[in-house]
């Protein structure tokens, strides 16, 4: 309408139907010290939809008896600005009722990375109509979770389940005890391993510093939880002793520039093991909280 240079297309607002709730969980002293969070589950009790309301909706829009429930971790920054991070989302049927489980492990992992004193765990739950458009308008309102609204108390309140593992029993033991009998350490630990660069043919005349370095290695076994995890996590293998933190190795090498040799500094990543830990093979690596 305003320009001769390019075509304009007039759009139309399509009502976006959503209702949002904020859940607050006090987390202090909920996670035992020296424990690993294996999984966190948010359980919401979906109340049955009144038959009459359901029939009315089905008459208006036969295929809209579902709604999308999305759970986001909400972080209130120090400057009071907010940011959210999606952690789980799934469709629920309006014909259904009962406990619904959402995986909020990542939200708790983010919360653990906050600096102390930490705010409570804030979970923003949004319910959206699956099908946009006037006939299904308002369907999201039919999805009600117990303890929504001022009453708050009573059966079926939102629950947060925390599955943790005691690292005292299932974790690594720090550095290996050089006095320990036998070649193989019984429990996952970090063992000294010196790499002699001077003894490597390819490094001759090329690597000027260091002559060698202490790289360490992770050895030993990890104790496996006897009972299976209370949920099916695909592709999860046994707990293994791995390098959970590593450091780079600076070097001075000789390079040729214009036919003349000159020393140059270079840094090789992940060359030295800083710490070992027991970790499930195949477990997702927790996302790091960006500043």
């Amino acid at each position: 309408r305003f320009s001769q240079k390019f075509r304009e297309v007039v759009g139309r607002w399509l009502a976006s139907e959503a209702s949002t709730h904020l859940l607050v969980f006090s987390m202090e002293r909920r996670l035992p010290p020296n424990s690993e969070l294996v999984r966190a589950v948010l359980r919401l009790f979906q109340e049955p939809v009144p038959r009459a309301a359901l029939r009315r909706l089905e008459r208006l829009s036969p295929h809209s008896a579902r709604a999308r429930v999305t759970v986001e971790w909400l972080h209130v920054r120090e400057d009071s600005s907010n940011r959210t991070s999606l952690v789980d989302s799934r469709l629920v049927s309006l014909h259904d009722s009962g406990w619904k489980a959402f995986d909020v492990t990542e939200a708790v992992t983010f919360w653990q990375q906050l600096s102390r004193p930490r705010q409570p765990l804030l979970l923003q739950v949004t319910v959206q109509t699956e099908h946009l458009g006037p006939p299904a308008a308002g369907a999201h309102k039919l999805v009600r979770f117990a303890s929504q609204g001022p009453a708050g108390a009573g059966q079926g309140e939102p629950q947060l389940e925390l599955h943790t593992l005691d690292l005292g029993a299932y974790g690594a033991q720090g550095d290996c005890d050089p006095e320990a009998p036998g070649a193989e350490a019984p429990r996952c630990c970090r063992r000294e391993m010196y790499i002699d660069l001077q003894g490597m043919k390819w490094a001759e005349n090329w690597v000027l510093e260091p002559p060698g370095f202490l790289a360490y290695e992770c050895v030993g076994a990890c104790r496996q939880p006897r009972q299976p995890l209370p949920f099916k996590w695909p592709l999860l293998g046994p707990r293994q002793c791995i390098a959970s933190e590593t450091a780079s190795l600076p070097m001075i090498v000789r390079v040729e520039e214009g036919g003349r040799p000159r020393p140059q500094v270079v840094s090789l990543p992940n060359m030295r093991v800083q710490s070992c830990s027991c970790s499930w093979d195949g477990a997702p690596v927790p996302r790091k909280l960006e500043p």
Partner: protein
Amino acid sequence: LSGEQIRGSLLQQLHLSQVPVLDEGDAEGLVTPAHVTAQYVALLQRSHSARSRGK
């Protein structure tokens, strides 16, 4: 960690496809300038104090 892995990482960092053939005589006379040594020591100190995320 093996010698091959270290060599592979070094080649990658220097964008080389193979280990350069260097004359031994040149290496002996080579002096490392102070600023290169200072850079090396600074990186060394940082790598011993930094905690990386690892695998």
